[in-house]
């Protein structure tokens, strides 16, 4: 979305794994729409979903999501 600030590295991480948005959505048990909203910075996931994303990529939450205070 034009003007939306992307506060995470999810798209990069997903690309590194060679996954499509649909692949990631299935692994996270959410819709592709949700993955797209998170990737484009339109939606901040809940803490449980953020943990799930971090665990899937084997890294810490702060390695994926940028702290608002550091943005």
């Amino acid at each position, binding site marked *: *979305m034009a003007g*939306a600030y992307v506060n995470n590295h999810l798209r990069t991480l997903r690309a590194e794994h060679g996954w499509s948005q649909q692949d990631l959505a299935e692994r996270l*048990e*959410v*819709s592709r*729409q*949700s993955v*797209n*909203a*998170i990737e*484009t910075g*339109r*939606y901040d*996931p*809940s803490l449980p*979903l953020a943990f799930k994303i971090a665990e899937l990529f084997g890294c810490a939450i702060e390695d994926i999501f940028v702290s608002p205070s550091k943005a």
Partner: protein
Amino acid sequence: MRLQPEMKRYTRRLLVTMTLYAVALIGANMWFRHAPPSGPLAYLVAILPALPIMGVFVVIGRLLVEMRDEYVRMLLVRQSLIATGFALSVSTAWGFLEGFGLVEHTQGYWTTVLWFAGFGLGGCINAFTEWRART
């Protein structure tokens, strides 16, 4: 697209409540036309068609509780808030117009009709914002 289990349940429950509504509406109309009830029974029969409509709100509430996808749930909450804001705004404006004698009196159940219209409007707004995000 594969339909999520909670959406399947929502669709099934909605079909049941809408079928009950049709039966209750036709039944109540026929009852009042052919053998008008009186006393407390009249109130009970008159309110029968409203019960499945109340059920629709419960069905939507259940969907909100059961929906596992938090982003889609947020969209549904936004859609419901748009519906509520729309219905209450138009009803309030109509109430004042009616109070000043500028429009005819309207039955209160039109607020529900407005809510469903607002729910459709909210769906269109959600679809538009999703479309804009992709372009």
